[in-house]
């Protein structure tokens, strides 16, 4: 006859401090679906486009997007930074999430 060893597990349930759903940062970005957003990327790159999709990795899909690359050159003679910008437009662009620094949404969407 085998003895049943019952391990009593007591689940300690914490009472939530607030009753409403806790919003995660990405929920705020979700509000901007269909709106034009600004995305800052690593490598001095910026994008502006209409947000159609994203995931938890911050992979992003934009339409009618404009990419701006800022080139910074240092002139050792004059000791100043020379910045120049190049832009590129694309009708549909997918952006890999590991490059994303931030996403800015329009005020009215929030």
């Amino acid at each position: 006859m085998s003895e049943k060893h019952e391990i009593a597990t007591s689940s300690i349930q914490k009472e939530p401090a607030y009753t409403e759903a806790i919003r995660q940062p990405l929920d705020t970005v979700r509000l901007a679906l269909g709106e034009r957003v600004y995305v800052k990327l690593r490598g001095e790159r910026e994008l502006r486009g209409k947000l159609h999709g994203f995931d938890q990795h911050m992979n992003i899909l934009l339409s009618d997007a404009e990419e701006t690359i800022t080139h910074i050159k240092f002139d050792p003679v004059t000791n100043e930074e020379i910045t120049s910008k190049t832009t590129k437009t694309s009708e549909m662009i997918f952006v890999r999430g590991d490059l994303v620094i931030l996403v800015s949404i329009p005020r009215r969407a929030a």
Partner: protein
Amino acid sequence: MTLFSGMFEALIGKKITIEMKNDLSFSGTLNSVDKYMNMVISDLDKSGQYETTAAKLLNRVFVRGSDVRYAYLDRSAVDVEQLEELTRKEGLSAKS
């Protein structure tokens, strides 16, 4: 299947341009994609800029998903309404 894996799977057979993090671009037909967004692109556009003359001879490339910066797509390739809906639903399932 994640959100964008599904989107890319629907693009198999369509024209795609991949810009990698090392600034190399590959333009061709999307042959296959996996959950890491690794891709195989075939029938490469010969007019693309490649680093070495050997690369110019390439016809089919395997691109590691983590090395991708952008994927340029045709507007018609994506159902944006469906994608927006799927993105909204992603948020709901993550909470439960």
